[in-house]
C-alpha cells in the first residue's frame, strides 16, 4: 500500500550547515504524526521541504506514491494540495481576516469571490471567529490569529495539513484553544504532521511520534511506547529535560 506521504533519505543543507541528514518518514491517510526533538533538529525544515518551500538536496519526497521533489513537478499544484500553518501565524497584515482566508481559493484555485466568501464565513464561524471576519490581524489575539491561519490553510481542502510549532508563539492561556481545534481536526480524520513541543498533546493525538536528532529520525514509535519506553539514550535525555521543565 502506498503511503499518503513518504520521505526517503532526505538531505538538506543551508550553506555549510547540514540540517537534514537522511530523513525517512511515512504518513498514512487519516494519521497524525508528531515530530519532536530539540530546537534545531530539523523539524520545521522537514515541513518546509514537504510543502516545497525549500528544495531538498538529496533523497525523495512522495505524495500518494509519486515523487514531488525534483524537476518536472508543478510546485504550485502540489502546494495547493497541502496546507501549512506556521509558528508565527504569518497572516497578511494588510488584509482583513476574510481576505486572508479567501486569497488562496480565489487566486490559486480560481474560486468565485462570492463562493469563496460564503465558504470562508462558515469556516470562520465553525472555528469561533464568526465575529472577526472584517477585523485585521493586529486586532486579534494570538490564539485568534492562529485559528484564522488554520482556517486559511483549510480553505483549499488540503489532503495533508502541516503544523509547524503552531502554539510556540502563543501566551500559555491561549494554547488550549488552538490545540482544541487541532484535536477536532484529528478526530475528523485529517492527515496531519505536527512539529511540536507540546509533549502531552503529542501523546494524546498522535498515531506515531518521531524523535529527531541532528537532522535524522533517531526513533519512532506509538506515543505511549516512545514516551514510556524510549530505546535511545538521546531520546531519554530529551524527555527528561522536557519533564524537568514541567512540559510533559
Amino acid at each position, binding site marked *: 500500500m502506498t503511503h499518503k506521504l513518504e520521505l526517503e533519505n532526505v538531505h538538506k543543507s543551508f550553506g555549510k550547515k547540514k540540517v537534514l541528514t537522511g530523513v525517512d518518514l511515512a504518513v498514512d491517510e487519516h494519521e497524525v504524526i508528531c515530530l519532536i526533538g530539540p530546537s534545531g533538529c530539523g523539524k520545521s525544515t522537514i515541513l*518546509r521541504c514537504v*510543502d516545497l*518551500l525549500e528544495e531538498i538536496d538529496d533523497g525523495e519526497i512522495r505524495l500518494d506514491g509519486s515523487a514531488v521533489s525534483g524537476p518536472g513537478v508543478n510546485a*504550485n*499544484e502540489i*502546494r*495547493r494540495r*497541502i*496546507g*501549512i500553518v*506556521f509558528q*508565527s*501565524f*504569518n*497572516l*497578511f*497584515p*494588510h488584509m482583513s481576516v476574510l481576505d486572508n482566508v479567501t*486569497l*488562496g481559493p480565489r*487566486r*490559486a*484555485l480560481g474560486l468565485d469571490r462570492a463562493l469563496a466568501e460564503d465558504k470562508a464565513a462558515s469556516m470562520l464561524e465553525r472555528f469561533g471567529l464568526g465575529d472577526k471576519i472584517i477585523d485585521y*490581524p*493586529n*486586532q*486579534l*489575539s*494570538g490564539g485568534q*490569529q492562529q485559528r484564522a491561519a488554520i482556517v*486559511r*490553510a483549510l480553505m*483549499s481542502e488540503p489532503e495533508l495539513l502541516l503544523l509547524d510549532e503552531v502554539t510556540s*508563539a502563543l*501566551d500559555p492561556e491561549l494554547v488550549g484553544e488552538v490545540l482544541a481545534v487541532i484535536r477536532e481536526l484529528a478526530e475528523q480524520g485529517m492527515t496531519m504532521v505536527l512539529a511540536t513541543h507540546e509533549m502531552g498533546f503529542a501523546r494524546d493525538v498522535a498515531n506515531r511520534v518521531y524523535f529527531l536528532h541532528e537532522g535524522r529520525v533517531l526513533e519512532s514509535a506509538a506515543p505511549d511506547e516512545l514516551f514510556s519506553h524510549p530505546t535511545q539514550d538521546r531520546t531519554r535525555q530529551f524527555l527528561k529535560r522536557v519533564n524537568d521543565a514541567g512540559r510533559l
Partner: protein
Amino acid sequence: MAERGRGHPDTVELSERRRSAIGEMFREEGAKGALLAALSTIVFVAVAWVLVVQSPNWPKIQAQFFNGEDFAAAWPDVVGGFWLNLELFGYSMLAIPIVALIIAAARSFRGAAFFPIRLLSVVYTDLFRGIPLILLILLLGFGVPALAIPGLPRSVMFWGLVALTLSYSAYTAEIYRSGIDAVPESQRSSARALGLTQWQALRFAIIPQAIRNVVPALMNTVVSLQKDVALISVLGVREAVREAQIYTSRTFNYTSYIVATLLFLAISIPLTRYVDWYTARDRARRSQSSV
C-alpha cells in the same frame, strides 16, 4: 506581534509623536510658551527686515530682483510656462511609479530561470542612476529627434518626459526594492504555501506591504521631481524657467526669476509640509500597531 490586552501604548507619548515638524517647533508648555514663541519670532523677523532694508545696497537689490513693474510684466509669460511644468510633472507622476514598480518587481523574482530579468533590472537601475539627469535630457531631447526616424515622436517635450521617467524610475525602483526587502520572508512563504505563483505572491502579499513601507520616501521623490521638471528648459521648451530667462535677457532685470521661484515654492512647500505631516502620522501609527 500585536496582542490585545497586553497594555496600550502610552497615549501621552503617542500624541507627542504625532506632531509634525511645525508642531515640534512650537512645542512648549502650553499657551504661555506659544505666546512667547510668537513674540520672539515677530521681534526676530522685524529686526532682520530692518537690517536688510537699511543696508546701503538694498535699493539696488530691490530694483534688480523685487521690482513691482517687472513682476507684473513677467508674470503672464512665466505663469503660462509654469502650466507646462505642471503638465510634465503630472505625466511623469503617472509614468514613473509604474515603470519603477515593474523594475523593482523584476528584481525580486526568485529562481535561476529568472536571472536575465533580474540582470536587466540591475543594469537599468545602475545605468540610469549613474547618468546625470541633465545629460539624459540633452541626449534624448536633442539626439532622438535629430535622428528623424519616421514613427518616432519628434516633440522635445515628449523626450524630456522620457528622460525624466527613465532617471526617476531608476531611483524609485530602488525605493520600492527597499520596501520589498523589508517585508519578512515568511510573508512570501505563506503566500507561496497557498499555491500562489511568484507573481501572485508579489502582487497580492508583498507589494501592497512594500508600498506602505516606503510611502514617505516616495513622497520625498515627488517633491524633488516637481522641481526637476524645470530641467527641460535646456531643451528650449518655453516652460517657467525658460520664460523667465527670456524676460531677463530682454530687460536685464531678474525679477522674472523671482516669479518662477515663487511659483515653484507655491507647489513644493505645501507638498513638503504634507510629506512631513504624513510621515509623522505614519510613524505614530506604526509605533501603535507594533506594541
